[in-house]
């Protein structure tokens, strides 16, 4: 997907005399291009609006957060001295950091292993289901895939009971198990679609040489799998990081992931302090945003594999 191809690069001047009507046609094209950009930029502004609000509000000291001026820039910026040593915009960030730093650390310990483990298992499954098949592999695949679509509420009541009866802790270790398990269907799907594109000859050659399944997977397929891993790791990291449902049902406030403590910060005792809540929302979103910005190129391809169409 290249940037700036198409209309933008078409040479617009021509040495030959123009045919009648051609300049009118060209004007109309230029017109529709302008209209397109106007709309695109308008949409850009609308989509970025909430981000503006988050940043601006997080920089305002609490006493300046006033409905009437809520869209304006801060009257006093955080680095300007506060009135009578009162709070500044930086205090919002300090408050948010204090409320969230521990749970942000815990969420890394949850999201990174969850992404790695389910990706690896998904790669093995995808390889078998696409390339080293057994009877009824398609049915098995569909049965696994259904797990991706179920509303997790449909398993939550017995899962909560199961957790209690097994005596599992209400912290991220339980969540890690859960995220690995329920991440398996999507990782399997992405790798299966990815491996379906590997040339037949490669696999046949390996078989001819007498390599077994694990040998073929380890020395032929895995080295080719990096793009697949990038996609599943982005996907799983983001969904484990952003999960709220499992966190709410299975963990508790003091040992849970960042989604729980952010929700607590935003709705708890600090309700009046919008600035701190917005600073917290920005803090809690940074890791996934960074992953997304750094690896975003691969994201669209991954989204496509995420849909069932192969």
């Amino acid at each position, binding site marked *: 997907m290249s940037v700036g191809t198409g209309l933008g690069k078409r040479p617009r001047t021509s040495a030959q005399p123009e045919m009648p009507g051609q300049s009118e046609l060209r004007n109309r094209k230029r017109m529709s291009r302008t209209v397109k950009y106007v709309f695109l930029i308008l949409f850009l502004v609308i989509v970025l609006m909430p981000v503006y609000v988050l940043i601006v509000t997080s920089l305002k000291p609490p006493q300046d957060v006033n*409905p009437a001026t809520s869209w304006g820039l801060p009257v006093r910026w955080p680095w300007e001295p506060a009135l009578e040593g009162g709070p500044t915009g930086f205090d919002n960030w300090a408050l948010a950091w204090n409320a969230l730093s521990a749970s942000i650390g815990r969420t890394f310990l949850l999201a990174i292993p969850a992404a790695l483990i389910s990706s690896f298992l998904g790669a093995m499954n995808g390889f078998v289901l696409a390339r080293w098949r057994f009877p009824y592999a398609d049915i098995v695949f569909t049965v696994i895939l259904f797990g991706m679509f179920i509303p997790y509420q449909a398993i939550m009541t017995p899962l909560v009971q199961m957790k209690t009866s097994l005596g599992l802790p209400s912290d991220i270790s339980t969540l890690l198990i859960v995220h690995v398990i329920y991440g398996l269907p999507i990782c399997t799907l992405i790798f299966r679609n990815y491996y379906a594109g590997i040339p037949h000859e490669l696999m046949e050659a390996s078989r001819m040489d007498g390599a077994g399944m694990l040998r073929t997977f380890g020395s032929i397929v895995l080295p080719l799998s990096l793009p697949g891993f990038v996609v599943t790791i982005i996907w799983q990291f983001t969904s484990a990081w952003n*999960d709220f449902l499992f966190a709410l049902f299975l963990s508790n406030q003091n040992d849970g992931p960042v989604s729980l403590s952010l929700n607590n910060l935003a709705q708890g005792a600090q309700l009046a302090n919008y600035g701190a809540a917005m600073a917290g929302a920005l803090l809690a979103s940074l890791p996934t945003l960074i992953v997304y910005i750094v690896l975003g190129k691969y994201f669209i391809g991954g989204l496509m594999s995420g849909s069932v169409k192969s």
Partner: protein
Amino acid sequence: MKKGYKNWGPPLLLVSPTIIVIGIFVYGLIGANVAVSFSNRNSLVPATEFVGLDNYFALFAEERFIHSLQNLGVFTVFFIAGTMIFGFLWAWMLDKGVTAEGVFRSVFLFPMAISFVASGVVWRWLLNSAEGDRASGLNRIFENLGLGFLQNSWWNEPGWGMAAIALPAIWQLAGYVMALFLSGFRGIPEELREAARMDGATEWKLYRYVIFPQLSPVALSALIIVGHMSLKVFDLIMAITKSIYQTEVPATYLWVALTANDYAKSATIATILLLFVAVLIVPYLVYTARAERKQR
């Protein structure tokens, strides 16, 4: 495929951990959930009786549950329409390539990377129901622009208020639908466009008769994905409004029942939710599995 377990034994063995785990945690727990929904476990005390479909009849006789279904319906209609329209529009505008396409694409897509809890923080403020002098968020913009008549109580209105909750959901996922459509557009071979142009098709006819028909599988995928997400909406509502009557959907009502230890009720709501999703997903999975087999 060669015969004999030597050929299919090892691959089956490799997948078996996943099969077992999915068997227990997806199908086993769904079974357990259905079993609880047929019982009278309304408290921490284990169930003693099989009550058949009584819980289901009781639920559908409840005004509150019907209201939550209506809310879900309003949300789903606006959410699907919004994401499909904007997603398609953006992809269409970007299809032929524009200057700084990467910037537009990234901006439209980035809300997807953010959790509903985090975006709920800002949307709770944008959709604040106060009007006039106390207005903030969108109502404040309307007030400042002299469009005061557009001010409304957003999600605080128990009838159509759920349409307001669809706004942040559209904001988060329209970019996803755009990405799906964009890969669809880009997947159409250039020769096909050229051939149509050679035959004298105008740009509009090219889209109408060549490109749009090619996009229908992508549109179906997008519709299924967005549709099943809509039926499961939970985080966003909890983050913006908490669990209140005006914005109650089955998923949040389930949470209310579960925190009251009314296990039979939460399990019953869950089963109904699962049935909704299954009606949408199962035919789709069967259809794609069949289409693939034909290709082979």
